[in-house]
Structures are given as C-alpha cells and as structure tokens.
C-alpha cells in the first residue's frame, strides 16, 4: 500500500510579530523584528533588557473569566493559535472525525508563570496556601487538553517536551500518525510563555541571551533573544483534503530525529546533520530538491557556526545554492514553541513563493558562510524546505515540507 500523503490545511500563530497569521506574515516578509524592551519584568533586574513579547494580547477577548482562571498564558497561546488554525482549515466536525483526530503539542516548560507566582506567594510572602488551579494550569499538556475539551476531540492527545525541539518533535509525531493511518487528522504545534523573573534569571545564568538584539549568522551576534507565543497546524491526508475541497498550504513530507550523545549544552554538527539527512530520507527527497532551510539559527556563537557546518556536511556543493534564514531574528526564540512558529513561517514561504529574511544581519562571518537572506525577503519558488530545531540535551528534530502547486 503506498504511503498516505499528508498536507497542511490550516495554520494559526500568535507571536511577537503578530497575533494572527495575517499580521505574522506581513511582518515576517517585511523583515520587521518584534524585539523590544521587556515589559513583563521591571528594568534593571536582568542583564538583558529586550525580549520578543506578544503585544496587545487581551485574554478576555478570547476566554471568559472562569476559563482564564484555568489557563496559564502559555496554554492560552496554544488554544488561540489552534482556534485560528481550525477555523482556517474549514473542518466540519463529525463524531467519527473527532474520534480519529490526534492532538500533539510541544512545550518546554509549561505553565512557568503560574508556578513562579505560586512559589513567590509561598516562599516570599509566607502565604502557606497555593492556588488550587496551579496544577491544571502548570501541566505542559494544559493547552492540548483544553483544545480537546473545546472541540470534543477524543482521539490521542499528548504533549512532547524536548526543550527547544519540543514542537518539531510534536509536529513530526503528528505527521507520522496521519501518514501511517493511526489518525485521520492532527491538530499540532506548540506554545510557550516564559517571562517570569525566576525563569529568566536561569537564562541569565546560562550567559547565552543577547544584551541587545538577535543577529543570527552575523559575526557580531551576541546571543539569542527569548520570545513567547504559539502556533498550530492542521494536518490531514491529501485524499481527505481533496475530498472536502480544502485549501492546501503545503505538503509535509519528511521528519527526522537524532541525538548528539555528546554534551548536555554544547552542540555538534554531526547530530543535526543526521537529523536533516533523516528528514530528507523519510520524505524520499534528494538533497538538491531543498531550496530553503528555516534554520534553528539562535544567534549564539556556538549554534550558528555549528549549524552552518552541519548544513555544509549534508548538502555539499548544494549548500551554496540553497537559502537559509533564521526567523528567530524577528519572533525571538520561542523555546518549546519555536518549531511550531517556524513551521508556519516555512509553510508560508512555500505557499507565497517568498523566503523570509534573517533580520538584524550586519556583518558576514566566515564560519557562517551560507546565503542567509540578509535583512530583505526574497521571491523564490522553491520546491522543498526544511525546518530545523536543535535542543539543549543534544536532541535534534527536522521537518521537511514540499510546496503545493
């Protein structure tokens, strides 16, 4: 039996560069970063003053008071982006479809804001009782569970937590489930909201956050910029999408994973290279078919040169013919939601025939000598794209997409 083909028929996103796909797309292709002075934390408490925060998000426009009480900001982002993707796909729910739909989401830390708030109450203010909703708000699957409740989806639902690769691992699993027939449809993606003082202090101690902005692949890069947000994709078989006359954004064709088995935080080129090769192989692609890579591209000294070496090792001479960009330069590093936000960016790039730029690029680095689409987006109808996520702990996950024409 030939493998079932899987297509993306709905997308949703909320991020520092837009609270809907329309807003996100406009900023993404205009190369407009959403990196601004941080508002969640008072100035002077952190070494890094800037962040990629979601702007103008009013939970009461999306949820009633009772719902807000049960949903941490990260889960709210997950639900809001899933609602947009579901509405965009035009799905008509039937009891059978509800039972045969999977929900797979990614989150690195779950309800960190709620946890921080509860612990501050307990440890600092000596109030010995913590909000009884702390557990349901904090659990990393809170977003996935809420989506299931809201739409009555009764198929398999779970959440993957693999640090910065969480969402790519989630989307990859969802894709495989639809491809192999374990589900007819999947709602997948991820969300993150991390602007609590306790968590940011931990990032400060890692010394990888930029004191100004995020300049991936640029010689004068000084680190990553933390972001928040969420994104969702609706995956279904090509057959089902065609049968209901759905709009198709792109085909998801391959998924590859690997682990470095090298170091808990230092990256290697070999692990990411093996994940890219695995995604290409899983999609029955030739490396020459890849025209664009949405890079992990965090903007740290170590990642960007290592990722460049990995891309060169996978693609050989073709590395000089493909384009690579890091959209983290605009929406920041959304940690466990990064893969989801970037999957939406890669999907839009294939759909529109425009490649998003690496913003804030100002100085070529011989160690990052790829075509990184500096600062301005580019019209290019590429056949296939990869989207890379590499996590602390050495866990790599790569998705492969094909343009739908």
């Amino acid at each position: 039996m030939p493998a079932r083909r899987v297509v993306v028929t709905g997308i949703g996103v909320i991020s520092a560069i837009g609270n809907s796909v329309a807003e996100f797309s406009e900023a993404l292709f205009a190369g407009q970063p959403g990196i601004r002075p941080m508002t969640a934390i008072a100035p002077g408490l952190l070494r890094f003053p800037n962040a990629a925060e979601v702007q103008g998000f009013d939970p009461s426009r999306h949820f009633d008071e009772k719902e807000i009480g049960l949903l941490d900001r990260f889960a709210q982002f997950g639900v809001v982006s899933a609602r947009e993707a579901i509405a965009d796909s035009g799905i008509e729910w039937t009891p059978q479809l509800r039972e045969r739909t999977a929900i797979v989401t990614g989150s690195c830390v779950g309800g960190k804001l709620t946890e921080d708030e509860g612990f501050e109450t307990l440890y600092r203010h000596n109030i010995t009782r913590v909000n009884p909703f702390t557990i349901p708000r904090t659990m990393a699957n809170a977003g996935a569970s809420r989506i299931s409740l809201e739409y009555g989806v009764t198929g398999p639902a779970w959440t993957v937590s693999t640090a910065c690769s969480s969402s790519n691992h989630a989307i990859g699993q969802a894709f495989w489930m639809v491809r192999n027939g374990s589900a007819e449809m999947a709602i997948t993606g991820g969300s993150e909201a991390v602007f609590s003082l306790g968590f940011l202090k931990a990032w400060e101690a890692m010394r990888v956050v930029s004191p100004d902005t995020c300049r991936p692949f640029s010689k004068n890069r000084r680190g990553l910029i933390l972001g928040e947000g969420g994104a969702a994709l609706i995956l279904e078989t090509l057959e089902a999408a065609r049968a209901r006359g759905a709009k198709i954004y792109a085909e998801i064709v391959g998924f590859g994973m690997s682990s470095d088995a090298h170091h808990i935080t230092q990256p290697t080129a070999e692990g990411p290279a093996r994940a890219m090769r695995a995604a290409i192989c899983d999609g029955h692609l030739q490396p020459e078919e890849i025209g664009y890579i949405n890079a992990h591209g965090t903007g740290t000294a170590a990642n960007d040169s290592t990722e460049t070496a990995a891309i060169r090792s996978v693609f050989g001479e073709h590395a000089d013919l493909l384009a690579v960009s890091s959209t983290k330069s605009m929406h920041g590093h959304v940690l466990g939601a990064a893969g989801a936000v970037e999957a939406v960016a890669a999907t839009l790039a294939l759909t529109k025939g425009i490649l998003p730029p690496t913003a804030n690029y100002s100085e070529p680095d011989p160690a990052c000598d790829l075509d990184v689409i500096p600062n301005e987006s580019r019209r290019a109808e590429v056949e296939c794209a990869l989207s890379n996520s590499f996590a602390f702990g050495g866990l790599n996950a790569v998705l492969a997409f094909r343009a739908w024409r």
Partner: protein
Amino acid sequence: MPDDDLTRRIIDVIAKTQHIPSEKITLDSTFQELNIDSLDGINILFALESEFNVNIPDDAAQNIRTVREMVDGVTRLVLGGADTSAPAHAS
C-alpha cells in the same frame, strides 16, 4: 601582577566547583587542560560572582581560556569596587 590572596581564592573556587585538587591548578593552566568546558565555565563564573560579590559581564567572560585570564579579569573587577573581605553568601 596578580594579588596572591585573590589568586588563591579564585583557584580555590575553581577547584571546588570542578571537584579537582587546587594543587593541580596553576596560573598557566588552560581550561582545556583542566577539562573545563563552556558549561563548567559559566558555573565557575557563578561561583566567583557569589564569592566576590561582583557582576561579571557576559562579554568580558566570553573569551577567557586560562586561569591567568580569569584571575586578571576578576582582580580588575574586585579592585574596581566591591568589598571582598567576606564571601557574599555563606555557603
């Protein structure tokens, strides 16, 4: 010329953080020789900040590769201001 007492305290911090005997550490030791990787490095910086009650900026810390460079850097920060007579935290 590094301050002897400061040098000894810095070497002690490195020894304690890395779980190695302080006799093994000299001013000329490189981090590579001592098996100190980037993650160990930030852990040492964290311990030094607590020991001397100073704030070591990311940029200044980034290119340190030897004990001598670390001693020079910390000495500059310590003599530049903060009171170092006692550790900032009892630990």
